């Protein structure tokens, strides 16, 4: 096989695998990019690469790592890594890059050379897969929790029914019989409440809450304040809101209403007795992520004790008579049904921060 043939195969392989080559020559202080590399990076043929310009070919957030990897390589450490680069039109994409030092006959490093391959499509698929996997895991965990709820809560009602009925057979006293009958009514009411909670959750998970609409955070906030005015006024709660970075989002309006309602009413329910409740609500974007954050100065919750249970159903952590343990569970279901996540940070006696990644 002669050289020109060899060249042909290399070119074809490079084209087929979208792989570009590069080289930095320390002796002549020159940098090279082969045609395929220029094509991938969308650079013209007359683009003259230099060490400084090469750095600009990496995505801003990855430049520091790229420099370090290059420096290490120029001291003799070969590399193989996945990194984000930037095309001349500003488009950021994933590549798999490998590089090795070039040695002269005296075993001295006189340069660095390597190849990189555009793996953007594969990488995006992989990221998407990971996201879906996480979502599936969380859905599974939710289903398991749901199954436990169905088993536990329906069982406790039915067990109370059974016990009441056997007692009813065992007592003769009319007043006691009457008391037991009243008890049966109470059990039947709690059973109904449980079933309506379960129904709500099923409907959330089948996304029957309605169509996505442009939802304004400020409007939802104002509506929530109005709805909760009876509890907010006596609490003297103060609100600090900032929706300037992200004013609205495509969401199921009923879900957003419910998220605000649940979290704000929780903050008031669990306000610290020694201070005025202050509730801070902000929205912002982080890359492509849209975030909504609620922060309060309430009594907080011990996450070491309750961490993994906080968003489960019928988990109540404070001795509060009004607590039914459905609010945060519902909130999590609504957020996750639309592909988002919710995380909590909390310090006892300091307050709680709920961070919601919307989608």
């Amino acid at each position: 096989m002669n050289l020109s043939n060899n060249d042909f195969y290399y070119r074809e392989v490079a084209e087929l695998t979208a792989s570009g080559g590069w080289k930095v020559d320390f002796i002549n202080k020159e940098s090279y990019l082969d045609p395929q590399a220029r094509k991938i990076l969308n650079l013209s043929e007359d683009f003259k690469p230099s060490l400084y310009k090469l750095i600009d070919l990496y995505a801003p957030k990855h430049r520091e790592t790229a420099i370090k990897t290059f420096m290490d390589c120029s001291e003799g450490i070969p590399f193989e890594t996945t990194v984000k680069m930037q095309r001349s039109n500003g488009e950021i994409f994933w590549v798999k890059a490998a590089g090795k030092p070039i040695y002269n006959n005296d075993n001295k490093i006189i340069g660095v050379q390597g190849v990189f391959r555009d793996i953007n499509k594969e990488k995006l698929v992989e990221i998407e897969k990971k996201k879906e996997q996480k979502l599936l895991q969380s859905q599974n965990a939710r289903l398991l929790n749901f199954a436990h709820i169905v088993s536990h809560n329906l069982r406790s009602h039915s067990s109370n029914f059974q016990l009441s009925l056997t007692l009813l057979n065992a007592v003769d006293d009319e007043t006691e019989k009457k008391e037991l009958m009243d008890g049966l009514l109470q059990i039947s009411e709690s059973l109904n409440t449980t079933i309506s909670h379960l129904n709500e959750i099923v409907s959330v998970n089948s996304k029957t809450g309605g169509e996505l609409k442009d939802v304004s955070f400020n409007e939802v906030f104002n509506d929530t304040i109005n709805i909760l005015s009876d509890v907010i006024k006596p609490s003297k709660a103060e609100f600090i809101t900032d929706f300037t970075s992200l004013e609205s989002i495509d969401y199921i309006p009923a879900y957003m209403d419910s998220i605000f309602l649940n979290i704000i009413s929780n903050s008031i329910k669990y306000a610290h007795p020694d201070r005025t409740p202050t509730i801070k609500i902000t929205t912002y974007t982080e890359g492509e992520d849209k975030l909504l954050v609620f922060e309060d100065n309430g009594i907080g919750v011990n996450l070491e004790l309750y961490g993994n249970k906080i968003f489960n159903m019928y988990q109540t952590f404070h001795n509060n008579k009004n607590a039914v343990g459905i609010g945060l569970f519902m909130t999590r279901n609504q957020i996750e049904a639309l592909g988002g996540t919710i995380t909590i940070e909390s310090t006892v006696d300091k307050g709680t921060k709920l961070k919601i990644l919307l989608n």
Partner: protein
Amino acid sequence: MTNSSPIKLSCIIDDDDVYINLVKKIIDIKKLSENLLIFKNGQEALDYFKAIIENLNNEAFPEIILLDLNMPVMNGWNFLKEFTAIESPLKKKATLYIVSSSINQADINKSKEFSEVTNYLVKPVNIAEFEALFNSNKISA
């Protein structure tokens, strides 16, 4: 059994008001225990036990403890952990039962890790079972 002395003091740790009322009635009707302590969660019960152990108040220590698992503030597991960590000669007196509506095998297995747990009962516990449980703990005359 009629010759044996009845249970003087027993204890329920459970957050279900309806259930508590029913058990109270059964104990009343069947005269299973002279007195009954009721705690709505593990923390309330733990505070009580710590106090009477500190005061070496033998009389105030129940002979039977019926412990629920799923409760607010402190659940049954955390109560067990804290309770079993207390060293006291008084403690030996109590027979502890878990009474829960959880049929989760993981819960049943976990209960076996605590030597203090005499048995795991799944709700509903019927009247005959309650009678048997209390009678088996009577001190024979």
